[in-house]
């Protein structure tokens, strides 16, 4: 029943609107806490010195760039198979957020690379595959905006999102498959972590904070797209009249 309700645009608009302020609030609180612990309380790294603090931006952004692409591809698959309009909208609303996180990953990583490796950029497998991820996001956004009919546009872009998912294992395993300048994983779900707890906790807090950023931003974008697509429908006009 809940899934069916979520498919109704007025219900989705109303229901999700209640959560967005809370998601922003939790994001702000967690970010403030995580940055305080990471930038102020955590000790400097014995090898990298202070530059390791870029990790609290770079790593959560990199995780988000991949997580958002995965969720976009899964939603794209659901949208193509079951043709659920809300899911199409959510998949397409994910692309700009994922692109933003990928830009943050690449710029923060580049600025971390200069003091650590002595260069801003190398055509290393990890860096190059992450750059390809940015191009995939831009491709999905470009394809979606190039077709006038929104549902056809979403279906074409969803197909590209699914095909592009092949890049995700390449990004993840690039540091194992090839000799790279980029370091391997310091944290794994099953294998634990090689980072000290004083440095690990701020990272985990920032990782959770970015999930709330994604949720709040995704729902905001989906609601705006619904308003735009349904501007001639009665429920949109009622909402605008209520706000007047």
């Amino acid at each position, binding site marked *: 029943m809940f899934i069916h309700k979520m498919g109704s645009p007025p219900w989705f608009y109303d229901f999700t609107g209640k959560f967005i302020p809370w998601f922003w609030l939790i994001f702000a609180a967690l970010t403030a806490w995580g940055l305080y612990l990471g930038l102020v309380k955590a000790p400097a790294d014995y090898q990298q010195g202070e530059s390791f603090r870029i990790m609290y931006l770079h790593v959560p952004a990199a995780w988000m760039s991949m997580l958002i692409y995965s969720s976009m591809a899964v939603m794209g698959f659901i949208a193509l198979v079951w043709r659920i309009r809300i899911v199409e909208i959510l998949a397409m609303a994910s692309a700009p957020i994922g692109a933003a996180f990928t830009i943050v990953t690449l710029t*923060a990583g580049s600025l971390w690379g200069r003091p650590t490796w002595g260069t801003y950029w190398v055509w290393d497998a990890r860096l190059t595959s992450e750059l390809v991820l940015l191009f995939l996001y831009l491709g999905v956004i470009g394809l979606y905006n190039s077709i006038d009919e929104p549902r056809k546009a979403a279906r074409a872009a969803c197909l590209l999102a699914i095909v592009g998912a092949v890049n995700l294992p390449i990004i993840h395993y690039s540091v194992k498959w090839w000799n790279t300048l980029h370091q391997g994983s310091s944290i794994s779900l099953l294998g634990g972590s090689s980072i000290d707890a004083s440095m690990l906790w701020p990272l985990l807090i920032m990782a959770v904070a970015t999930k709330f950023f994604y949720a709040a931003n995704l729902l905001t974008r989906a609601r705006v797209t619904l308003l735009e697509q349904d501007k001639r429908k009665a429920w949109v006009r009622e909402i605008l009249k209520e706000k007047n």
Partner: protein
Amino acid sequence: MSHAPFILAAYSIGAIVLFWCAVAPLVKKKAIARDIRRLIQIEDRSRDPNS
């Protein structure tokens, strides 16, 4: 080598990109709401025989 400029630049760029990412849909929503209100006004006027 001081690391502060690199840290500052990374966080500043990150803040700008994510801030714009958060604000862009709100700007778009405002423009859409304005368009819809204008559309309603035009439709109301065309329905009103005195106008």
